[in-house]
């Protein structure tokens, strides 16, 4: 099973075309294995990106040093997945009753 322990989803609010270009360049860097849930296309739209735990420091430094506003949308993806799994289990129990 692929685990997502410590992975975070950041919501980024780009404020300019320059921000968008920087984020598009970030999207192309395969080594940090970012998973863009919402791609950088326009400063009118939010950008959501799942950042693996190991890449978090680098990505946060990148955003901060370029003054790109962002906040943590999901603090720990794995935690949420475990909650989801528990909910499914509970609903299955209810259904089987």
């Amino acid at each position, binding site marked *: 099973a692929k685990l997502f322990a410590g992975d975070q989803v950041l919501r980024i609010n780009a404020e300019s075309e320059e921000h968008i270009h920087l984020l598009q360049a970030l999207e192309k860097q395969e080594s940090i294995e970012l998973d863009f849930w919402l791609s950088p*296309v326009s400063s009118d739209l939010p950008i959501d990106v799942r950042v693996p735990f190991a890449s978090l420091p680098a990505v946060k430094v990148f955003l901060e040093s370029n003054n790109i506003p962002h906040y943590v949308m999901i603090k720990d993806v794995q935690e949420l997945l475990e909650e989801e799994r528990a*909910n499914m289990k509970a609903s299955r129990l209810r259904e089987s*009753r």
Partner: protein
Amino acid sequence: AKSFDFGAYHTLDEIYSWMDSLVAGHPRLVTKVPIGYSYEKRPMYALKFSTGGSKRPAIWIDAGIHAREWVSPATAVWTANKIAADYGHDASVTSLLDSMDIYLLIVTNPDGYVFTHTNFQNRMWRKTRSVIPGSTCRGVDPNRNWDAGFGGPGASGDPCSESYHGPRAESEVEVRNVVELIKSQGNFKSFISIHSYSQLLMYPYGYKCADAADSVELDSVAQSAARALSSVYGTSYRVGSICKIIYQASGGSIDWSYNYGIKYSFAFELRDTGRYGFLLPANQIVPTATETWQALKHIMEYVRTHSF
């Protein structure tokens, strides 16, 4: 069937078994149409809602083409139940089904969907599970694999990319199964694809940024549908062509259907509450489905009154 919890996420087996119970409960209205097998040989079924006749004008709705977008099939399950329950009780649904059929494909990408469920091997999986010769990466983005501007901007040629378009148009059997059903039935008037998330209601084109010939009408239908949706919980949708409101993306399903002659082609991106993305909590399924139903109903009513 009565114990099925529409406010919960379900595995593929649970959904298929529920489909059987829906058919059993509405034998004269609902049938389960096998449309082929997935890459990993899982059966694919569309639910057909029909009050009789063959090859009548029809509306196509699919969900779950991207595996991790769980709220999309969950919404389709609720919708299937709603259509069946409302026939004979709701004037709009009754009148629609008295003259048209609805085909609803709840899980368009069964292999990917199972992959996201099986011991949570990868809850974030988006693509199909096909093996790509010469690559260690698996899967094709099935919404870049249709024969509409295939391989153009907004799709990747890299098999490891989340938006890999595949070796050729319709290389994915899941896509081919839908194309073949649509072509063999031959009388579809509307094609609606349900995705999540980000609250968008879109129409062609995605592979190019030029306006579709019917863009004014499609925009007007979509705007009204989005207003109907918003009337339930105030959820705000953006409306426009794929290219203009998100980005250029080639090989998408509704571009194919539109170019094939199915004028009323739309794609939904269902809601998030702004906090969960693909991990929308299960308690949001029923509200999401309820509001989406208003938009779907609006589009279907419009199609019925403008297709003859």
